[in-house]
C-alpha cells in the first residue's frame, strides 16, 4: 500500500549535460487536479519524466505516494503516464497498444481484454480500435494514449499536454473525464502551455518558467502572487531622469532606477499592463523612447500566459 497520498519533489534538479531542465524544485502535490503551466521549454515534460522515472534527477529526491521512482515494478501499479512522445511500438493497432500494456502489467488474457475495451470505450475509440495506430490522426493518437495510461486504474495520472490535437467537442468530453476521475480521489497532473485551457478545472496550478517553479497554489492565489511579484522593465530613452520623475508618479510603480550606462531606466511595477499603457501616454509628451523590454523574461512570459494580455505595445 502507498505510504502517503503525495507526489513529492525535494530539491530536485535535472541537467541535460549543460542544459538546465528544471532547477531546485520543491513540491508536494496533493490529490485533485494539478496543472503544470509554462511556455515551451519551461520544464513541464522534464518534471513529468522525473515523476515517472524515465529520467533520473541530477540532484534531489522524488517520491510518488511514497514510492521511489527507480522502482518501476511498484511505481506503475499506481501511476499512469500519457507522454508527449508521439511514437508507438511498430505495427500496433490501438487495441494491441492497450492490451499488450495490460499483459505486461500481469493481467491474464481475459481480464486484459475486458479492461482494454473499457479503457477504449472511455475515450470513445471503439470504432478505430482495430486499426493500425500508424493511420490515426493526432487526436486519435492522443486518445489511445489516454486509454493506455488509464487502463490499469492508476491512482496518479500524469498527462503531458493531453488536450493537444483534440477538437472542441472531444476536448470538453476529456476534461469532463478528468473531473470524474479526480472526484474519485485520483491525482491528475496535467501539463499545458495555455493557462486558461486548464485553470477552470484545476484545483491547483504550478507555474514553470525556464526550469524554475515561479508560482504555485490555488488559481486565485497564483494570480495575486503574480500581481504582487513586481516586474522589472527596462526602458531605453534619451532623457531617463525626466522619465523617472514622471514614472514615479504612478502608483503601480515600486521603484525606478537610472540604468548603469545612463541611457535607460529600470522600472519595477506591480501591474505591467497598466504601466505599458501609461508609458505610451508619457512617450507622446516629449521623451523619446527607443525600446521597452521586460528585464526579467521568465516572469513576464508566464505573466502573459496567466493574465492572457495582448502583446505589450512598444
Amino acid at each position, binding site marked *: 500500500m502507498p505510504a502517503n497520498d503525495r507526489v513529492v519533489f525535494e530539491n530536485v534538479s535535472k541537467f*541535460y549535460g549543460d542544459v538546465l531542465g528544471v532547477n531546485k524544485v520543491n513540491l508536494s502535490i496533493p490529490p485533485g487536479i494539478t496543472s503544470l503551466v509554462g511556455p515551451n521549454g519551461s520544464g513541464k515534460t522534464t518534471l513529468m519524466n522525473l515523476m515517472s522515472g524515465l529520467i533520473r534527477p541530477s540532484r534531489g529526491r522524488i517520491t510518488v505516494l511514497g514510492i521511489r521512482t527507480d522502482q*518501476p515494478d511498484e511505481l*506503475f501499479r499506481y501511476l499512469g503516464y500519457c507522454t508527449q512522445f508521439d511514437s508507438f*511500438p511498430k505495427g500496433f493497432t490501438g487495441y494491441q497498444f492497450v492490451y499488450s500494456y495490460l*499483459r505486461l502489467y500481469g493481467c491474464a488474457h481475459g481480464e486484459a481484454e475486458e479492461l482494454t475495451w473499457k479503457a477504449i470505450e472511455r475515450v470513445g475509440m471503439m470504432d478505430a480500435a482495430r486499426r493500425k495506430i500508424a493511420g490515426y490522426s493526432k487526436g486519435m493518437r492522443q486518445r489511445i494514449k489516454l486509454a493506455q495510461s488509464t487502463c490499469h486504474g492508476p491512482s496518479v495520472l500524469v498527462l503531458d499536454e493531453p488536450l493537444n490535437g483534440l477538437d472542441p467537442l472531444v476536448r470538453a468530453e476529456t476534461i469532463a473525464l478528468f473531473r470524474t476521475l479526480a472526484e474519485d480521489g485520483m491525482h491528475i497532473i496535467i501539463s499545458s502551455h495555455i493557462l486558461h485551457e486548464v485553470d477552470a478545472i484545476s484545483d491547483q496550478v504550478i507555474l514553470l518558467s525556464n526550469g524554475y517553479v515561479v508560482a504555485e497554489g490555488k488559481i486565485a492565489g497564483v494570480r495575486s502572487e503574480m500581481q504582487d511579484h513586481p516586474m522589472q522593465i527596462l526602458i531605453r530613452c534619451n532623457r531617463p531622469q525626466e522619465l523617472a520623475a514622471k514614472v514615479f508618479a504612478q502608483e503601480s510603480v515600486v521603484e525606478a532606477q537610472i540604468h548603469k550606462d545612463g541611457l535607460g531606466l529600470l522600472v519595477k511595477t506591480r501591474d505591467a499592463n497598466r504601466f505599458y499603457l501609461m508609458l505610451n501616454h508619457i512617450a507622446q509628451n516629449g521623451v523619446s523612447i527607443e525600446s521597452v523590454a521586460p528585464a526579467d523574461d521568465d516572469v513576464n512570459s508566464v505573466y502573459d500566459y496567466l493574465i492572457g494580455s495582448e502583446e505589450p505595445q512598444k
Partner: protein
Amino acid sequence: MNPLWIVQTLAVLRLELRKTFFSKRGFWIYLLALAPVVLFTGHSLLEMKNHRVCDFGQDTNIFATVFQIFFIRLGVFFGCVGIFMNLFRGEVLDKSLHYYFLAPIRREVLLVGKFLAGLLATIVIFTSSAMLQFIGMYLHHGWNVVSDYLGSGNGLSHLIAYLGVTVLACIGYGSVFLASGVAFRNPLIPAGVILVWESINSFLPAILQKFSVIYYLKSLCPIQIDPHAGSFFSLLSINADPMPAYIAVPGLILLAVAVLVLASFQVRRMEINYATE
C-alpha cells in the same frame, strides 16, 4: 498461478518475437543462414549430376572448417549482431522504448524477456541452418552411407555437437551484443572490435582468452581443424589446449550470465532521452 515475473517475461517475449523473427531490418539474417546451405547443397547436386561422389572424410573436414570459420565466427556472429543489438538500440531509434519503461515491470525482467526472444529467433534460424547444411553436404553420398555414419559411426554425436555449439554460440554472442546494444550508440564499432578480439583469440595470453566466446566454442567442435592445413584461417582456430565439455559449457554460460548482469545494471540506469539521439 505463475509468479508475476514469469507472466511478465512471457508477455515481453510474445511482443519481442514478432520483431526478432519478422523484422524487415533483419531480412539479411535469413540470407546469412541460408548461404552455407546453398553452398553445400549446390555442391552435392553438382556431384550427383556428374555421377561422382566425394571422399567422405574430406567432406566431413570441409564441413568442420566451414562451420567453425564461416558459420560460427561470421554467420551466427553477425546474426546475433543484427538481432540482439537491436533489442534495446532499435527501440531507442524507433522511440518506442518508453512503452516498456512505463509498465510495472522490473528492467531486469524486460532484459530477460528480450534476451529470450532473441535467443529463440537465433536458435531456430541457425540450428535449422546447421541441420540443412548437414543434409546438404552429405546428400550425394546416398542414404546408406549417411545412415551408417549416423548409426554406427560418430555422425550423430557430431551432428548433436554442431547443433549444441550453434545454440551456445547464440547464447554467448547474444549476451555480448545485447549488452553492447545497451552500452553503445553506434553498433558497428563494438561489433568490429569484438570481431577482431574473437579472431585474435588464439594469440592472446591464456587468461584473456577466457573472455571470449569462441574460446569455449572451439573446444566443443567435434572435429578440430588441422593447423597444418596451411591456410590463414586454420591459424585462427588453433586450439592449443582444448577444454573438456564439462568445463567449456558451464564456462560459456557463466560468461553469458556475467555479461547479462552487467547489461542489466546499464538498463536500470537507462534514461529516455530520445531528443539527444
